[in-house]
């Protein structure tokens, strides 16, 4: 159902290049002091890399809405787990007194 148009090897090479550049960037930036932004930058690059892999290597860009919805649901639920757990950990110190 999903193979009406498919990426070509040329595109794959481009993605590979982008991923390698992303990895090098992550590695390089890790040694520069950005304060609290270090993990933010690293994770942003990681997210971009993951999105590239998902969209092109995993053909989601060419897939139907259901597949896209499924993946979004996965990350949405992960966010639920993380944020709702943190809602406890981050507010424990604000005791009402």
């Amino acid at each position: 159902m999903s193979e009406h148009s498919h990426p070509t090897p040329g595109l794959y090479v481009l993605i590979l290049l982008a991923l390698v550049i992303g990895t090098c960037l992550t590695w390089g930036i890790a040694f520069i002091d950005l304060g609290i932004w270090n993990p933010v930058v690293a994770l942003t690059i990681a997210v971009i890399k993951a999105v590239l892999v998902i969209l092109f290597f995993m053909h989601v860009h060419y897939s139907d809405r259901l597949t896209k919805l499924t993946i979004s649901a996965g990350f949405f639920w992960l966010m639920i787990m993380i944020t709702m757990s943190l809602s406890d950990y981050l507010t424990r110190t604000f005791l009402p007194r």
Partner: protein
Amino acid sequence: MRRFPLSTSQTTTTEHHPALAHQFDSMEQQQGASTFGMWVFLLTEIMMFGGLFTAYLIYRLKYYPAFVAGSTSISVSWGFANTLVLIGSSFTMAMAVWAAQKGMRKAQVWFLLGTMVLGAAFLGVKAKEYYDKYDECHIPGHVIGKGFNTWGGCDAKDPSLGNIAEEIRKRDPNIPEGAAVQIAGQTEIFFSFYFAMTGLHAFHMVIGLGLLAWLLLRARRGEFGPSYYTPMELGGLYWHFVDIVWIFLFPLLYLISRHQHGA
């Protein structure tokens, strides 16, 4: 009493592809269902790794200095190299799927082989890293290896063997020994997560290699072509997912506040 049938019946005539399972009407339905099934399975994988990531995050907030020290003690170069290896294997995997779609038997086999070699290389590096940790007495707990020591190394007197407390003091002499030892002791929890997360990932890699071997056999027999390449597609999805997990593991485990301490 009268019955009110919900349905009328219809006879379907579809030409049968040998790979079409009986429960499906068409190859298109079969591929759609299989691919979607794989995605649903990957959804469960996201949540499974997600549980680990959540716990990791909470402990990282709680024991940040120890996570920095633990992260610094693992080799960023190997981690970096392994990231590139895995990205490369993802590329060859994508190419293998493409070759299958195009019905290029030889190309499939070579790309699959390439993927397997890179995957095995990744596991080899991982094994080396694990062995280093074993050597440095950084295995958490008291069951495997010589047991985790509060100073985070094998011998308190010998700073050369993974003595994390000593490393901390070397990088920042202002940190007193007591504090360094305490932080070193807490790296045990970092290593717990390091091994749990990379271990679960490596376990997925091993399964992935098994899948690839099976795909390789089938590809060699020329089973895949433009009309049927679903198993290849599914294997690809799985392999890319494992790659994505690593894309997150690398910065989370290897690169915690590297700038403080240099390579």
